[in-house]
């Protein structure tokens, strides 16, 4: 914004909030703390939650258990919210979970075309590309093109199901279990489950030879 606009004239005695986002957010935080509207310690606790506690390792454990334990997979199919809560993952942006399973013939991919809905409780905060105009616009009309941007090519006969998260239901993709993983325990399996494989823009990794 130019600083010589007419709005500025009557504000000459005020210190205008800067346009740079970093400075603007700092100014806003200072104001909100000064007014007693936010507690700085609560802000730190929120940040710590999403930096150290809630992230894609949660979802990877869900997937590894789904691959390993048929009874758990059945519970996920029946009520994914409750089955995921068994592992301690619940709450904000994971209140209503649904799993969608990739198979030999079906590949699922999740998007939110209207904003950035994403299953925080199992995947953490969404990456920049998930929130980008390019992904939001193109995932529904050209999913194979989007997959190519991620270096993923699926057989031509594979059915692709895109899920546009328009409500509060949050979709977790259960990727296909890679070959050569028989006998691996859940922790080792979880290492193969990438974040993108649980969004549907990637595949689970092959185990190291």
């Amino acid at each position, binding site marked *: 914004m130019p600083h010589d606009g007419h709005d500025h004239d009557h*504000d000459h005695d*005020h210190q*205008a*909030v800067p346009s740079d*986002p970093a400075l603007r*957010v*700092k100014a*806003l*935080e*200072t*104001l*909100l703390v*000064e*007014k*007693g*509207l*936010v507690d700085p*310690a*609560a*802000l730190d*606790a*929120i*940040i710590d*939650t*999403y*930096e150290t506690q809630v992230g894609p390792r949660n979802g990877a454990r869900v997937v590894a258990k789904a691959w390993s334990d048929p009874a758990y997979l059945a519970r996920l199919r029946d009520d994914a919210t409750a089955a995921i809560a068994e592992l301690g993952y*619940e*709450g904000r*942006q994971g*209140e*209503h979970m649904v799993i969608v399973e990739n198979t030999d013939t079906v590949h699922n991919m999740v*998007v939110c*075309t*209207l904003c950035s809905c994403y299953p925080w409780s199992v995947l953490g*905060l969404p990456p920049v*590309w998930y*929130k*980008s105009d*390019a*992904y*939001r*616009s*193109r*995932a*529904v*009309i050209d999913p*194979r093109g*989007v997959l190519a*941007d*991620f270096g993923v090519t699926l057989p031509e006969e594979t*059915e*692709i*199901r*895109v*899920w*546009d998260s*328009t*409500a*509060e*239901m949050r979709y977790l993709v259960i990727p296909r279990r890679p070959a050569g993983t028989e006998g691996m325990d859940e922790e080792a399996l979880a290492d193969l489950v990438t974040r993108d494989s649980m969004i549907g823009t990637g595949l689970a990794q092959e185990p190291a030879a």
Partner: protein
Amino acid sequence: MNGVHDMGGMQGFGPVRPEADEPIFHGEWEKRALALTLAMAAWGRWNIDISRHARERLPAADYLRYTYYEKWIAALGMLMVETGLLTADELATGRPDAGAQRAEPPLTAEKVGPTLRRGGPSARPVAEAPRYAVGDRVRAKNINPAGHTRLPRYARGKVGEVVMQHGGHVFPDSNAHRLGEAPCHLYAVRFTARELWGPDADPRQSVTLDLWEPYLDAV
């Protein structure tokens, strides 16, 4: 509203550019922007639908120009002024008005864990039985409300098949405008790519959207 936020099916935004080893935040200010937004929501002056609609109401050119957390901060500013938590002058200057009362923040550090674990479930009981069953064919209405809706333009007027019943949920078109939660049945509805995009589309592709009963007509 037919805003730029409703971008499903638009072309011309270029390739998706995944970032290798992407950090959770790009800079300290993004952390603070996220935390301020979540902490201010604890005042209970707005709900998630009002908050989404605030981002949609940003000027279209700003919406496209801003990064994600810039949108959040701009919408947070709007909401705080609209609900009287800040005055427009305070937001513009970054200084409390003379004589402003100091408040007590509702969200303290001890409450952060329980608040985030509780989240904000949208499921609600609905007295009426669901009108549609899995397997039913339905048509998404052709509506163009000036306010908030979660029926994207690309699905309007199209015919799909109900693939899941999700039970009763808060209706955003009402809740975003402080007209009550108006819960109604929510369904996952699958549309073939050919129905959405025409005869050149891949016959093995589909898009499934979660749509509330008021968006749907029986076919």
